[in-house]
């Protein structure tokens, strides 16, 4: 619960600056509107990270479906997989292929075994951070 709120507020704050600029009207209330400031960082600093961005980050970076749902079950600081401290390679591969919770299974056409191996290594080794 706490994590969820923090996530929504973080998303909101980033956008408030941009949205309520010249014409901003403030009545002192804050709209916790998830439809603002949801753009995620799509940058990458290695080939493996670029692969992660292409295949996973739409759900597993900021304001992705996976991040929103994981923040319900773990500290918000670890809800983004790249910040998660204890991901094993095997776990990543099983979660992707078997699906988990509301995450659908990822087919081999979408992410080949070889690509999944690289992504799992990237996450298990700390997401490059």
């Amino acid at each position: 619960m706490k994590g969820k709120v923090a996530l929504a507020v973080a998303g909101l704050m980033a956008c408030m600056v941009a949205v309520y600029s010249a014409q901003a009207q403030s009545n002192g209330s804050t709209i916790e509107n998830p439809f603002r400031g949801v753009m995620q960082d799509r940058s990458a600093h290695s080939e493996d990270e670029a692969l992660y961005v292409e295949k996973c980050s739409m759900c597993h970076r900021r304001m992705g479906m996976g991040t929103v749902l994981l923040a319900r079950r773990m500290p918000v600081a670890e809800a983004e997989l790249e910040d998660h401290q204890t991901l094993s390679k095997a776990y990543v591969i099983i979660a992707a292929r078997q699906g988990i919770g509301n995450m659908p299974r990822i087919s081999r056409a979408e992410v080949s075994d070889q690509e999944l191996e690289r992504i799992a290594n990237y996450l298990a080794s700390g997401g490059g951070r």
Partner: protein
Amino acid sequence: MSDFNPAAWRAFASVIGSEWVMSSDDDRHAYSDHYAADESTHAPAGAVAPASVEEVQAIVRIANQFKVPLWPISRGKNFGYGGSAPVMKGSVVLDLTRMKKIEVDQANGTVLVEPGVGFFDLYDYLQNNKIPLWISVPGNSWGSVAGNALDRGVGYTSYGDHAAQICGLEVVLPDGDLVRTGMGAMANSPVWNLHRYGFGPSWDGMFCQSNFGIVTKLGMWLMPEPEAVAGYDFEFDQPDDLGWVIDTIMPLRRSGLIRQSPSIGNWLRSAAVMTTREEWTSDNGPLSESVVTAIRKRFNIGWWSVQIRFYGEEEIVQASMRVLERAFDNKPILSKVPTMWRRGDAPEGTPMTGVPVSFPLANANWHGGRGGHVGYSPVLPPSGDLAMAQFRRTYALYEKYGMDYHASFAMGERSLTNVNQILYNKDDAEMMGRVDAMFRELVADAKAQGYGEYRTHIDYMDLVAETFDFNGNALRRLNERVKDALDPNGILAPGKSGIWPKGARA
């Protein structure tokens, strides 16, 4: 269930390589509908994933030879409509996700995409190449740009009627022949993706929601980055406000002042994405008035909310804002918040400005655990009274079946699409029974008014097709005649949109 010669798998592998012929249990599961309570109903036999149009053609020829039913998907993210699963159990999914070419015509504001290109892919491509064109994204932007347009998906900007932005297709026909539509029918046409029509009949619409061909390239118009985007987020306090709000906005929609399709939706839209039901109540029945009040307070929203945006040169956007303000003068709004973005500002970061998103999919977790939703979306005339009547009838059915009302009315140029999401817990068999019964009653209720669905789930394609009943379902007869002419072996997506090949008809 289809039953075909297993030698077909080897034939597919000989063309695309065994790596891309997928028929293990894991593979079959990967292409099932993960929102379904019983995934076996539409379980595919496996999948093949070609990387080029030539490979698609070769697969289609093999499918004809071995009478293998193919179910083409672009990226398979059509969640709420069946995902990547076929109507007919035992079909082979033809997964086009590996076809990812993007060709942008920056000067003219168009793109030619292959089916595997997702909204995030196209967004990244435009950003990385600093191309000042904006995309229109749907609430689930994980999916395919082409696939979404072909299923008549919608987005938030003035380019949000995605099927209407299609300009030119490349299509593999069910016999393996390859055609290009519109001006693309001329070899090397420089206007294939610029001019909507060619010479003679135009066929682009024929490949939307159909099973008449496999689209391998799709031309689409994109919005040149506007000088400014401005608008209002309106909140309204009472359920009965729906009617007058629609009657206030629609004249501006008809006049062309508002060029996106404003979608007025209820309080559950935010709550279902950002929270789970158990945070609000442990009652199983419909959400009480006190819960609705608590949700509204937490998100500081009305019973209904609508966001309106103008795109273009700043003077015009500012003038449009004034006309909009005038239209709502002295009307009982709960609140209005203006938004303004100018070129050069930091990105606003919303789907309204073409930023792809996936978080709306989190509403599958509304009931906790593994969930999903099914869409019920009848189209009605753009009248406040009719919208109110539709809302009341539908709301009563949500109450009757003990489900939580989640709805919006998207205002098109001349129609309303009443998009309802029935959110469920797929592991609750009793609830799933109610959902199915409710869906069928909703379709019948709309039909009684003369309203039909704009799109539907694979479970209900026959049901919805049946409601298009002018002259004894003449449309079905036409579709079947076309189907038989183009696809005599019935290999392409049997049952899609209620169109079945010879020998498989009810």
